[in-house]
């Protein structure tokens, strides 16, 4: 039985080392698919051996040596890779720290826009973070076979279509960075929304996403949206533990115990936002983080600066006029201008958000303000039908009990 401390020690090693090793092997072999496979093999072997033998003193050297042995095994079996594998077996000098950009190249290759988003996410977690296919499949609630196929397909495309292994030029960077940040935020959200009150998983995706975003911020310190996404993740993380009560039920933002929020992390996020603001015009992540900061910095729910939040949502709608952003803006609008203009906006969004559970939950809450209780109950039932998340279902179900008038809304938790 492996202790939690061994698991965390192993995860820390994988985070710190796998991307570096994988990046340098891709550079040496010129074959993303092969190099990534060798490193992944080494990770799988480490996961079997380290809990028994302990984490080695020099884990990076251990992983490299294991990858090298895998290369020799393959060379014996498979002649098609002979030349590339020869590189790794003949006089291989395993100095992976010669090129600090290797890991950055690796991240941009994994998140290339020619790959589907779910493949970008899976490849990044495997090649850069050292997660196994089975761990990724578990985290994203798909079968291991499906995840394995997704990864194999993406790697074939990288090799077959010759997706390059390089850091994008300055003129391409905004577009390419947006892909990386979107993938990272998916990883974080999956960890944040997927985690339950006491769900012990072998990898905490929030920790992984925060770690990688922090690394990106150090590698690209002039990019405001990287800093902003880091701030946004820190702000969510600062109140993660207060999202559930002692019995494991979801607690809404307005009811959370604010004294238990991580106020040091909130202050740090504020400093990141200030730093990002000096670097450029506010982007979508900056605005989302600024909204999260308004919530985080309010001493009580009643003292929330809704006017400021509404203004920030207004700016966000101009950058990203999607219906979910407009739904969140409508909630702020209700606090500033009352339920009537908010309801008009919610009505207008119905066609776009008919299949989104938080649309119906938000609508239900608003309908209760107007005393339209039967319609509110119908909307809540629709929301319950549309969500698979057990914590959200449980909370919505309590609203259908006549004595409980607690409320859930799109940006409330």
């Amino acid at each position, binding site marked *: 039985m492996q202790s939690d401390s061994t698991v965390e020690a192993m995860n820390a090693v994988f985070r710190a080392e796998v991307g570096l090793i994988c990046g340098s092997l891709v550079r040496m072999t010129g074959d993303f698919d092969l190099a990534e496979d060798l490193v992944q093999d080494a990770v799988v072997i480490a996961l079997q051996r380290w809990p028994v033998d302990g984490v080695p003193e020099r884990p990076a050297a251990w992983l490299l040596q294991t990858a090298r042995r895998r290369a020799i095994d393959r060379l014996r079996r498979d002649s098609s890779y002979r030349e590339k594998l020869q590189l790794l077996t003949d006089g291989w000098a395993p100095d992976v720290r010669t090129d600090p950009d290797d890991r950055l190249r690796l991240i941009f290759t994994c998140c*290339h826009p*020619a790959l589907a988003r779910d493949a970008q996410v899976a490849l990044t977690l495997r090649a850069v973070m050292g997660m196994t296919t089975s761990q990724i499949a578990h985290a994203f609630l798909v079968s291991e076979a499906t995840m394995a196929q997704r990864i194999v397909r993406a790697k074939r495309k990288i090799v*077959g*279509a*010759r*997706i*390059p292994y*390089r850091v*994008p030029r300055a003129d*391409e960077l905004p577009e390419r960075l947006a892909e990386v940040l979107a993938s990272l935020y998916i990883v974080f959200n999956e960890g944040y929304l997927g985690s339950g009150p006491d769900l012990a998983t072998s990898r905490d995706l929030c920790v992984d996403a925060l770690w990688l975003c922090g690394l990106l911020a150090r590698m690209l310190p002039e990019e405001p949206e990287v800093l902003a996404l880091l701030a946004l993740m820190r702000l969510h993380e600062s109140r993660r533990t207060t999202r559930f009560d002692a019995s494991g039920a979801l607690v809404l933002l307005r009811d959370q115990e604010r004294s238990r929020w991580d106020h040091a992390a909130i202050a740090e996020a504020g400093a990141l936002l200030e730093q990002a603001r000096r670097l450029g015009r506010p982007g979508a992540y900056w605005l989302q983080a600024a909204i999260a900061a308004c919530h985080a910095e309010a001493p009580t729910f009643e003292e929330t600066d809704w006017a400021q939040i509404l203004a920030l949502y207004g700016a966000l709608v101009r950058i990203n006029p999607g219906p979910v952003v407009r739904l969140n803006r409508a909630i702020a609008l209700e606090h500033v201008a009352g339920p009537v203009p908010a309801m008009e906006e919610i009505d207008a969004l119905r066609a776009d958000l008919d299949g989104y559970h938080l649309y119906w939950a938000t609508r239900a809450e608003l309908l209760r303000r107007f005393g339209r209780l039967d319609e509110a109950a119908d909307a809540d039932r629709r929301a319950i039908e549309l969500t698979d998340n057990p914590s959200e279902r449980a909370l919505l179900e309590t609203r259908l009990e006549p004595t409980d008038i607690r409320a859930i809304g799109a940006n409330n938790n």
Partner: protein
Amino acid sequence: MKYVLLLIRNEETVLDDATRATKYAAIDEWFGELSRDGKLRGGEELQPSNTATTIRPNEGRPLVTDGPFMESKENVAGFVTIDVADLDEAIAIAKRWPYEDQIVEIRPVVDHPELSNHPV
């Protein structure tokens, strides 16, 4: 690495003569640049899909039918073969294709070193 750019257009879109002339001048320049850079390997514009003839397998007696292989508003209107370093370069070239309203599909070409190189 060779790629074929498949140029796909909506055949219901009709351009007036002036617009068409401007577009063709831009296309001429686009081809000129590829050619000067030594990256052009060929390409053709195709007549509309109502001129297409399709041969389908039919139990050993191929069936000749009128029309393109798939009925669609959008059809392949041309193709260009380019030889460039990697997918990023192909993407950059495809993004500069002068018909902004057309779809460009990029397909890497299969390299067959084992086959003889028949002169064209």
